[in-house]
């Protein structure tokens, strides 16, 4: 069970209340027509599938509806860092 404190509404949320958004920091090429087909395909499909610290997007779906970024250990589900999209940080205070 993944439990994350939403950095916006400040509630501890169980994964059933959250929506997983996949890997974070996937940069959309700008402008898209400036990149090769290979680069565009990599943007679309290639993910790191990290074992360990993984940067990912989550949404407080059943709560405030805000998206945020999390650094999570994909082995232990330990949450190391929670980041807002506006760049402000918050660290999990519980563990």
């Amino acid at each position, binding site marked *: *069970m*993944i439990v994350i404190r939403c950095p916006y509404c400040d509630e501890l949320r169980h994964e059933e209340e959250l929506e997983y958004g996949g890997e974070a920091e996937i940069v959309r090429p700008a402008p898209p027509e400036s990149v090769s087909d290979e680069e*565009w395909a990599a943007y679309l499909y290639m993910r790191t599938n990290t074992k360990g610290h993984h940067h990912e997007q989550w949404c407080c779906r059943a709560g405030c509806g805000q998206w945020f970024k999390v650094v999570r250990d994909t082995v*232990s589900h330990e949450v190391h860092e929670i980041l807002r999209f506006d760049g402000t940080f918050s660290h999990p205070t519980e563990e």
Partner: protein
Amino acid sequence: MAARETGFRLDGGCLIERSKPLQFRFNGKPMLGFKGDTLSSALLANGVGLLGRSFKYHRPRGIYGAGLEDPNAMVAVRDAYGYEPALRAGQVRLAEGLDAHTVTGWPSVDFDIGALAQLGMRFMKAGFYYKTFMWPTWGLYEPYIRKPTGFGSAEPVKPRHSEQRHDICDVLIIGGGVAGITAACGLLGAGLKVVLADEQPRLGGALMREGVTINGRPGAEWAVEQQAVFEAADEIDVLTDTVVTGAYEGNFFTLLQSDHDAGGAGQAGGLRSERLWKLHARYVVLATGSLDRPLVFEDNDRPGVMLSSAVGRFVGEYGVAPGRTVGIFTNNDSGHLTALSLLQAGLHVSAIIDTRLAPESPGVEATAAAGIRRLSGAEVVGTSGYKGLRSIDVAPVGGGAAERIDCSVLALSGGRTPLIHLATHLGVKPVFNPESGEFICPYVPDGWHIVGDAGGFSSFAKAINDGLEVSAVIRTTTGAGPFSWDVPKLSALESAPSAAFWKSNAGNPARMWVDLQNDVTVADIELAVREGYVSVEHLKRYTTLGMGTDQGRTSNINGLAILAGLTGRDIGDVGTTTFRPPYTAVRLSAIAHIRQNDIYRPRRRMPAHDAHIAGGAVFEDFGWQRPDWYHANGADRETAVAAEMVAVRGAVGLFDGSPLGKIEVTGPDAATFLDRFYVSNIMTLKPGRIRYSVMLKEDGVIFDDGVLTCIDEGYYLAGPSSGNAEMVASWFERWRQTEWPALEVGIAPVTSNWASVAIAGPRARELLAKLNPGVDLSSTAFPHMSYRECRLGGVAARISRVSFTGELQYEISVPARYGHDLVDQLMGEGEALGIQMVGMEAWLRLRLEKGYLHVGSDTNGRTTPGDIGMGGIVERKIADFIGKRSLSLAFSGSDEREELVGLHAGQGRLAPGGRIMAPDAVSAPCVTEGYITSACYSPSLGKDIGLALIERGRSRMGETVRIYDNGGVVEAEICSPVFYDPDNERLRA
């Protein structure tokens, strides 16, 4: 030989209420028990000793344990709330009217034909079935072999009531024995939220059966006192009747709490409901204690042979003696402690058979002082009695003359097994401690503490100390500050760990049971080793050791020890098998919860739902409850749908489109924002105008279609399809937040704020005029694809002139609460114009005639705008939009794209899913080149029409194709998808 004895009721028993007798039945026979009894204790009190037959050899089997560790006592139970075909009697709480049956044994437990299998026992070694029934296939024999085996019979059951609760706590204490209670005491006043869970109906654990005093009173009384303190404190939740069934990453737990209603006075009771907790804890205190291990010897499966702790529990918790004369077979001091408590309850202990040569401990001294006969350095080498134990044969360990000793119960105490399953759920690999003869946790998961017996051989004094220490650590870590507490004054006999004795070496290994449920004997393990199955996981699968419903609680460790002995390894090197959740069986109804039937997905009703009922609607679930057709329009579906289509084509029809998505997008950057989603140019959309377009995912595939209305500068209304309304709103929101936070734009999903009713047909304008909207309705003033706001009867309304049917059509939206009134008014005013209500089926057929696509039906996970004929629009749009770049990848330009086209059949019937056969195909199976996505009979054309995705379809107009569908082949001609009014004269009227 002594007469066969049966169990009976004693005085005492701290869990039962003698003022509340309960009537129940066992195999049809009426019996009496008390509130608080388990089915096991009540059966023993009624003298029932034989509970079933073993799985393979059909040997008589009796009650062996007191709770979920019992491998034998499987019963089918019917109570006031349901029926279950296979439960352990020790886990069934007695209730008035309970009806229990044995589940093994045919035709009856007392006379079992399968017991003849005993005669053939020596032929049925491990792997017997695999080896014997290999030819020609196992499947040939399986049905015949399965028939006489298995537990109970299934019948359709009504799920028990269940609920689920999610919670988060600071400390979860698992186990309410002395260690768990002490830990909870130490956390009082710490300002931490504590959950204390225990399987039993009240706290106390081993205190309920052992002769321990705390602060000068019996330990069980002290436990009840502490429970009252906890229940009065806000910060501690005491969950009794609760099993922690699983531990998962991040210290997340599932707990199953049972709510028993004992009934009484003729009112039947039972397991009323269950609650599945999903609990997250910062700190965990594992205080689960330990379980008695049996000893292995010849004929150790005879009814009457049971775990020493079980005998202690029956006497202490339920005031039930399993028999009058008890023998005790032990390799440690706890057998002596059990003997003392039995003596105190007035039972006769005929002998303590202690494998140790010269045992010395306070317990041993006490039994000697009490005059109980002890045979040291001795072992049990055999038992007698058929359906119940009558005597045991005892001989010196290592050989010598055997002596026969009478007893009707033999209590086995072969050491303790710490209950560390929950830690192993999190990947902890137990290690063997040769000193205590136990598998223990070498480390604990983050945030965990293990206290008392769960941590390895312990004592009441150590358990109290552990509990206090752990609570102090947690208080310090959380900054709760120290807590001064009077350490309870304990009086208990200290004891030492067990001696290394696992099984007798005298006797026939084929009659020494290791796993009583699955009939696995020492001989089976020997055979497995001879055949090379020396890994513990292989042994388990080959012999089925520990694979029964009891999960091998009493057999696993003995099996490992015997395997280690046979292979000359240390027990620690053999290792254990892996435990996985759940700790004990969990009913599917508790997991499924109320997410079934209507509650699986709540039904959504449109604002004018009642108006449709009045109109005779036949509802279907399309995510919303929507009229599929109306009884008022025809006796059967086809007749009604035809009439509804005729009304729209000839006069006017009313269709409730309230579920159609409505998302308001506002702000100075609203146009820029939306332009990045739609394949059409949105920047040129003027206030009061509407544009149809599609949206793609980034991979270039169509995600949704719909109309976009420009209400005003910086104020748009997006109309995604009904099924995608929520998804599109989330999609907008995600891009806004994560990619384009600098854009000034707001997104408001308002679908259910509005009731939207479409009126379609040549007389739609006449009808709308009757509502006096105060808007010039002429085609020049209010043309197709435009939007107006007005007031209808004083209510703010939005009118969009769009068309899904190909006819003149207006979509009128009013605040949801006026939806019913709007439908009533339109139906009233429209009566003279020939209005009919129109359901989904007619509506979809009308759009099919017009060739409008339905996303999800006429598109699939590969369809691009080019495939549906919107390639030109995409090419004209210069600005970037989501998915655009992907349209220049190779796949998009392939000449094998499936393109959306029309099909019309001469005589044949077309149906969705029909496969377009390759032109050179002779017969199916063959290569196909696409499929029919939508099809129906068109009343306007007088034949079947359809839409289809066909390879290179647009370049194949006029070609006749053959379509394979459900075994038949029909012919149809490829044509334009627009079958009706191709010049759009009617919708522009």
